[in-house]
């Protein structure tokens, strides 16, 4: 049952075919078998998970029923979890135990989910390969010589390898969508403001957004139903009624207008990804969709603008890690300056330090106008491009990543790593919702397709994703290694 979707497990739990304790134990066993190799989890909460599963079963016995009751999940280790280690993939927080729960965690708890553990990630969500984690690389379940993508690589790998039924992630420049593409799962970054950021450790506040990583669009919709909604503790969360995202999944796509940005099919896109996405567009046409080319004129500026705005915000967000109140502190500081310097030099990894430096530089006196201000202007232009496109189309579809997962250790140049997010970053800059769903397999590795929607139009994206998944089975494909470990043929 561990390879089933949330919707299927939920039905089995409701029918009494399986208990939450049983399915939880099955995932825990699976983690015990595979996590050593995949390194998807930083923390596994065996005891508390079984207790929560027992409580869920009791609640069900007492007549309670809700779609996620008793469903085992994993949280990215960026979400604060009360009394459970929250490391953010960093030495800086390697021993940090949060005294409070993130709103996302709280909402899943209230829905009766079972927390299996905390997933590995790039340090402070800075990375596209999960190689910057203090807790070691995560391996791609499809081929352990390859990266799972990042920064929510642990969550994507855990879902792909059936270590959990579903997982949370966060996406600042592509950190849900790109690992979803690399691991062959469904991931979604909601509109900025849709999901509360309270308790989600900040990387770049104006871009960060939490979202689901799941085995299907339907599962993502079920998760989003729980995660979304106004939170007074996050001033940037938006007061909009939360619809039932599963309600419009089955809407027919006849007449829907799909925009295809020519900039996303230009130089740099691998042949196999192009072919896979094109095939998907053909499938959509069969379903009655109208395909139109759209022009995202300024999309070539998105990576540059992002690597000013995100590091600038990060440089301030990460100032609190100073060794004074919690987290890592260097040994025997001789004075305050020594404590600051060594704590931060030793506590942060290379990529985090690089981005703090970039951000600090971009905000420095004399450079602010040339970098930060200009980047904000570009952000505006990028948003205008989308607004214009969305007057003509309902959703925009393209590749999530230019290629399939790359080999661990193969990208040593930071800029080539930054270019990994070339198709995903603009969406964050514009604050829009977007999903990545599996669209094919090449060289034994999955590929992802990105579906971008209008602001707060997650339901439409999920509808478009779900319809594709009703007519294709790319999302059901498993790595042969995983299938073997499942004991299936």
């Amino acid at each position, binding site marked *: 049952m561990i390879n089933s979707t949330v919707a299927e497990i939920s039905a089995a739990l409701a029918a009494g075919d399986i208990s939450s304790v049983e399915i939880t134990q099955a995932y825990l066993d699976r983690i015990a078998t595979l996590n050593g190799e995949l390194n998807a989890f930083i923390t596994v909460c065996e005891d508390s998970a079984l207790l929560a599963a027992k409580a869920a079963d009791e609640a069900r016995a007492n007549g309670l029923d809700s779609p996620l009751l008793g469903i085992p999940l994993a949280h990215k280790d960026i979400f604060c979890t009360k009394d459970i280690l929250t490391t953010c993939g960093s030495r800086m927080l390697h021993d940090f135990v949060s005294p409070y729960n993130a709103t996302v965690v709280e909402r899943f708890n209230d829905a009766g989910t079972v927390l299996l553990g905390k997933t590995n990630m790039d340090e402070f969500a800075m990375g596209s390969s999960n190689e910057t984690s203090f807790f070691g690389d995560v391996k791609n379940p499809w081929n352990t010589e390859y990266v799972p993508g990042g920064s929510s690589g642990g969550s994507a790998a855990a879902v792909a390898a059936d270590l959990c039924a579903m997982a949370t992630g966060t996406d600042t420049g592509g950190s849900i969508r790109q690992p979803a593409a690399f691991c062959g799962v469904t991931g979604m970054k909601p509109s900025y403001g849709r999901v509360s950021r309270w308790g989600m450790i900040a990387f770049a506040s104006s871009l960060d957004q939490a979202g689901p990583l799941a085995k299907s669009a339907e599962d993502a919709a079920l998760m989003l139903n729980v995660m979304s909604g106004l939170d007074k503790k996050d001033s940037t969360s938006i007061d909009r009624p939360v619809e039932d995202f599963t309600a419009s999944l089955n809407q027919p796509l006849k007449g829907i207008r799909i925009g295809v940005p020519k900039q996303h099919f230009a130089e740099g896109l691998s042949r196999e990804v192009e072919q896979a996405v094109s095939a998907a567009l053909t499938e959509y046409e069969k379903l009655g969709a109208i395909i139109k080319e759209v022009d995202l004129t300024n999309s070539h500026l998105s990576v540059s603008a992002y690597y000013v705005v995100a590091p600038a915000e990060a440089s*301030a967000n990460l*100032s609190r890690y100073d060794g004074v109140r919690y987290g890592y502190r260097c040994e025997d500081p001789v004075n305050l300056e020594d404590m600051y310097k060594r704590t931060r030099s030793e506590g942060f990894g290379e990529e985090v330090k690089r981005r703090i430096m970039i951000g600090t530089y971009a905000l420095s006196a004399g450079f602010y106008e040339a970098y930060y201000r200009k980047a904000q202007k570009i952000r505006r232009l990028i948003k205008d491009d989308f607004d214009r496109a969305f007057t003509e189309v309902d959703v925009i579809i393209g590749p999530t990543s230019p290629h399939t997962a790359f080999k661990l250790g193969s990208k040593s140049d930071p800029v080539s790593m930054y270019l990994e997010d070339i198709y995903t970053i603009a969406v964050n800059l514009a604050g829009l919702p977007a999903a990545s769903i599996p669209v094919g397999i090449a060289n034994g590795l999955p590929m992802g397709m990105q579906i971008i929607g209008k602001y707060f139009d997650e339901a439409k994206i999920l509808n478009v994703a779900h319809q594709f998944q009703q007519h294709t089975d790319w999302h059901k494909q498993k790595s042969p290694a995983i299938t073997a470990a499942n004991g299936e043929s």
Partner: protein
Amino acid sequence: MEWETVIGLEVHVSLSTKSKLFSGSSTKFGAQPNTQASIFDCALPGTLPVFNEEALRMAVRFGVAIGAEIGKRSVFDRKNYFYPDLPKGYQVTQLDFPTVGKGALTVTLADGREKVIGVTRAHIEENAGKSLHEEFSGMSGIDLNRAGEPLLEIVSEPEITCAEEAVAYLKKLHTIIRYLDISDAIMAQGSMRCDVNVSIRPKGATELGTRAEIKNINSFRFVEKAIHSEVARQQEILEDGGRIIQETRRYNADKDETSSMRSKEVANDYRYFPEPDLLPVVIDDEYIAAVTAQLPELPDARKARFIEDYSLSNYDAGVLVSSRELAEYYEIVATSSGDSKLAANWVSQDLLGLLNKNNWEIADSPIQAERLATLIARIKDNTISGKIAKTVFESMISDESDVDAIIESKGLKQVTDSGEIEKLVLEVIEKNPAQVQQYKDGKEQVIGFLVGQCMQLSKGKANPAQVNELLREKMQ
């Protein structure tokens, strides 16, 4: 060479909101260290600010009170620097879009001259915590109770030309803030602090000289002294052919001198940028109108009304409105006693004298307004003389009983029985034949001496007007 001084003041006022600027922690003064520090105040990972709108209301209240432009869209910024009592590693403040824009204060100087001093802006920001270096050997203690408390930083134009004007500006600011009830503004407790920017230039020059900033001065008197000493220091340097360095200095009251705090080499680049965790604060005309409608009567308006309604002198009215509590006290005394001028004298001289001597606030006064009004009423109805009233006033400090009871029990009631007074008068005439003769010879002023003798004889209780009248009658 003749020099002129240019001063600009930056005043930090702690807004008296119940909770902090961005968290629900209490702002109560004097709690045990770190008992008023929430997870946000400690800058735990993942925590976010939520703006306390009470701080906005208070800032706007101040803005409309000084006739300032109100920012309809104020934006918070992060000011980045590392210090252990700054938990987030940045202070949230307002850089380009403050809540309060240009306004002005009118101050009255000792010679009666009025001067308008411009306020450049006033912005909302959060306070830092406190570092305690003394109590922990080899370490520093951090108390975050104060971290995140709301401050209003009020920046003046560099239009202040001497220490007296600076103090007058500060006192006026203090008065207005207290009237508005937006802060305790107690300098000794740090709820009002002042940074002074001082520069000097040759008289008549148009360009400003290089300024020094004297940080964190915590009394009006020290502001005055610090300016004097800093001006003297700068003058001496310039006259010796030296140059002033732009720097931050501190004032040492014991030595009465300023000294350098940090040099330019370590000057911070604060790398301001808009705070992405908060939305811009947008208000409309309706909001401003509502705050304006709730403004109390302000000191200038109250002063004009006191002059008009109570026939007070400009000076007396100025003294009486200098604090809201004093003005309210006076108004009770004036209306209840029925003599606004007598009330003004008693409040501004006797009462204030008593309070100042004991370092009391109005609220600490052992003589409440109603009691003082009764005392004045007893002078008016001739129960006691003005002189006896001073004795009663003294008794009232320690004796809480009713004013009439004090007069009665001490036998201080004025003698108005004409028979009694006639006895006194006759006795004095008999004992002072020489003076009586002088009076009869036309030396009118001798009457004063004779009245005095009668009063002495009555131990001050005789009604002086009656004595005067009867003396004249008997000496005809």
